């Protein structure tokens, strides 16, 4: 069997990156910025500075914590048929986020995200088999900011029967969210983690107090965590691919230590969020070739530590679904898939993940399909050499009448795109690809039905959100999570 494989770091190179990251943890340390973390770390043997809320981490402690990390992490769907196991050798794809704007590819205009756009995007992800699970992909700017952290998850779960992954930014959100997720899961999140949390570290070498405390509470309830360091080469990371990845690895390992101390054995996925700063605007670039290299190094180092990983790809810096978008997305996509990522963040985002386009979601499904075909394991033997057919056809002639042609074509030897335009030019004249994609998204949204949350579960979510709204003094006149447009 043959499967294309990309490697970058040699064994010595991996050791070098490991040694530098270990030096960073032991000599510089990490700002955890919360006394709750510092207490745990001090007890475990880290050199903690309680005044500065920082800690230096000896390798022995990091290694001990790595040993308690599971190699596979199950992400349960609201519908068990959509359960995913990250790290089991399969390649899965998750919808990217979190965009601020919604892009209309037909006009080139964009508008701020809303609850209704979030609802539509999640319904579209529900309809697409290429999407295994999803982030709440676009900000719902019209929700009451006091309760949005809860309502965004409610909207996501109501419109998607797959697993949801997102940040919990406020420790006060943790308890009500756990109630909501347990209501949806029909029991403990240890049994069915329908939600996993994203913990973004703050480069260089820091953790944010509120998100860290919230994440600690979530992992203690059985929620897996995606650790997502995001140093940007040139601003919050040094001006080299390698240096930025040393920061990434150090931040990742510092999170591993913290969350394994908070909840030994909790599921941790290593996420690749490192990117490049556009030095003119300071903006985050995610489609640059250096981003692809960072992903490759991150995937290799994650596997070096025995951690499953989520790579960032397919998303682009282009401003529309144009040639740049395809090239940037496929550059990061091929490198991540060939390097052996367990999950790839993809689908719909452009403009440095600031804009979401439903048309691009549809087009990215074809990119994902092509990638899956590229990295598929294929036999290199008589069944594919087809020597008998070649000998029988001989010199001249054709293979149209061969049984093997029909049989292998039906079996998927040649991948078929859903939207990409093959065939004669005239067939597509006057039908721009992005417009066709937007039409297809509209059609799916018209026809696809998401299994609704059971009434008692919806009522429980209402009750949890209402209770929380009262405690924070939220206005009753806000847009609600299940408001119709």
């Amino acid at each position, binding site marked *: 069997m043959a499967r*294309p*494989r990309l*490697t970058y*770091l040699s064994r010595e190179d991996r050791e070098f990156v490991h040694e530098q990251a270990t030096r960073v943890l032991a000599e510089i340390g990490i*700002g955890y910025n919360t006394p709750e973390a510092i207490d745990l770390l001090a007890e475990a043997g880290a050199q903690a500075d309680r005044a500065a809320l920082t800690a230096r981490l000896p390798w022995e402690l990091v290694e001990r914590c790595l040993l308690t990390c599971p190699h596979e992490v199950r992400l349960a769907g609201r519908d068990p048929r959509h359960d995913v196991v990250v790290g089991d050798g399969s390649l899965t794809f998750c919808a990217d986020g979190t965009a601020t*704007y919604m892009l209309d590819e037909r006009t*080139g205009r964009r508008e701020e995200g809303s609850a209704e756009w979030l609802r539509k995007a999640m319904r579209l992800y529900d309809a697409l088999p290429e999407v295994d699970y999803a982030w709440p992909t676009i900000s719902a700017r019209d929700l009451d900011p006091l309760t949005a952290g809860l309502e965004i998850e409610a909207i996501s779960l109501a419109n998607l029967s797959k697993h949801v992954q997102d940040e919990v930014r406020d420790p006060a959100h943790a308890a009500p969210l756990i109630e909501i997720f347990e209501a949806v899961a029909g029991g403990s999140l240890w049994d069915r983690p329908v939600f996993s949390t994203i913990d973004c570290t703050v480069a*260089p070498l820091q953790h944010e107090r509120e998100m860290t405390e919230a994440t600690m509470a979530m992992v203690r309830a059985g929620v897996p965590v995606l650790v997502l360091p995001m140093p940007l*080469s*040139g601003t*919050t*990371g*040094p*001006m*080299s691919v*390698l*240096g930025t990845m*040393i920061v990434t690895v150090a931040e990742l390992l510092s999170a591993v230590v913290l969350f394994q101390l908070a909840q030994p054995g909790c599921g941790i996925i290593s996420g690749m969020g490192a990117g490049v700063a556009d*030095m003119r*605007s300071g903006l985050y670039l995610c489609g640059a*070739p250096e981003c692809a290299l960072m992903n490759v190094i991150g995937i290799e180092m994650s596997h070096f530590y025995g951690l499953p990983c989520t790579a960032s790809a397919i998303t682009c810096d282009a*401003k529309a*679904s*144009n*040639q*740049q978008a*395809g*090239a*940037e*997305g*496929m550059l990061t996509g*091929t*490198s991540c898939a*060939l390097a052996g990522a367990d999950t790839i963040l993809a689908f719909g985002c452009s403009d440095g993940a600031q804009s979401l386009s439903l048309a691009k979601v549809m087009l990215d499904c*074809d990119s994902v399909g092509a990638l899956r075909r*590229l990295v598929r394991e*294929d036999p*290199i033997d008589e069944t594919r*050499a*087809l020597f008998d057919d070649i*000998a029988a*056809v*001989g*010199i*001249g*002639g*054709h*293979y149209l009448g061969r049984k093997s042609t029909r*049989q292998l*074509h039906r079996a998927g*030897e*040649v*991948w078929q795109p859903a939207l*990409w*335009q*093959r065939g*004669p*030019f005239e067939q597509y004249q006057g039908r*721009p*690809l992005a417009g066709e994609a937007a039409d297809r998204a509209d059609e799916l949204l018209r026809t696809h039905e998401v299994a609704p949350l059971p009434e008692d579960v919806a009522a429980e979510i209402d009750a949890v959100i209402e209770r929380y709204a009262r405690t924070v003094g939220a206005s009753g006149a806000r847009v609600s999570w299940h408001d119709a447009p």
Partner: protein
Amino acid sequence: MRPRFEYLTETERQFVHEQTVRLLEEVGVAYNTPILTQPLREAGAIVDEAKLQAKLPWELVERCLRQVPRDILLAGRDPAYDCTVGAGGMLYTSDGAATYMLDDLTGERHEGTEADLAAMMCLYDAVPEVDFTWATITPGDVDSRVGNLEMARITFEHSRKHLQDEVRTPEQAPVMIELLEAIAGAPLSERPIWSATNCTIAPLQHDAEMTEAHILMARAGCPIFVLPMPQMGTTGPMSVLGTSILNMAELLSAVVLFQLGAPGCAMVSAVGSAVAEMRSGLYLSGAPEDGLINVVCIEMSRFYGLRTQGSAVSCDAKACDLQAGAEGMLTGMASALAGADIMLAFGLMDSAQTASLAKTVLDADTVNAIERFMREDPVDETRALMDDLIEVGIGGHFLARKSTRRLYRGGELWQPKLWHRGTFDQHAGTPLVKDAWDRAQALIAENDVPPLPDDVRRHVRAVIDAYLGGAR
């Protein structure tokens, strides 16, 4: 450190080799020309003189492979544009030979003309990422009896770079040689400004006239790019592996043919095998299976010690849209990672039927991004920047570090020429394709290709006209 890649294991390469050898020994190939019957028989092939076919024992193939040089000069009309295959680094050439020219702004297309070919060649001359060219579009308004001669004339009038193309009949070969030597100002054996694209005919055949013509070109000193083109499902079997085996058998049969016809001639394994679109029968150039076929054939050609040209960056998309970028980058990455010496890229879409000015300049960003990805970078203290990490410490930023400025200026971060970075508002209302079109038009308008000397132009015209006179 640079990205390393592998598809076939050593055992699998051996399997592909054995199947290819079986094919050459048991099925054979049709050369369709009597001129090589005797040399083939003398060299040990089993020749069927009536059918003009031969079965090739491995010993013969191996002997011929040993004669193929490793370094291949592709001379430019201007020596400043000479390039050598095998000198290190990947070379890029334009794709060819399209039938139509696209207006990227309207989406309309028309049949190619001399003016279109001239414009494309001006653009290739101006784009530094294009190392050499293929006559990228067929001009429908020149006399088809001298199509390739006129294409060589038009190309060298508008480009200083090396050209690869075909000569389709042996009668035209001496004419082409005279024309090229007039332009080169030297024998082709010294300044091979032109190389032949030799398409085999799948499955397992050679075109008599083209074969005879290209043997003459090889004897005059022109390198030969062997381009087998079996299409998976129609002229090739319905598997990536089977089609690749067929590709390799046709390639090796051409190696034997040319090394017997012109011993020691320069040869490149060019991968033209692809997938057939089973609804329309069209050639697909951007499918993931195309990427895999390129990978297998490049790995096998390297196994045989041959220089390689991958087919990539071209696409099946009908415009410079997301599909064009994704298809081009997928095949581009596959060929680059597999270690191609040359990548056939630049300018074509719609399964290589349509040429586009905008795509040409956008493809330059694609190949530069690939080059940055493939670049060898140190994994050591100079890039780990530990001193900077320690000094910036927890929190803070790297904007003020000397290493930031130094490495930024040193090219740590690749900068595209056309792709849109920066803010959304900065680019709102200006589609990328419009920027690309404008850039292409500006490059063509600013072109500074010196005209061919008057005496050379007159000589070239006279050579073509004399041949046409004789042809009448």
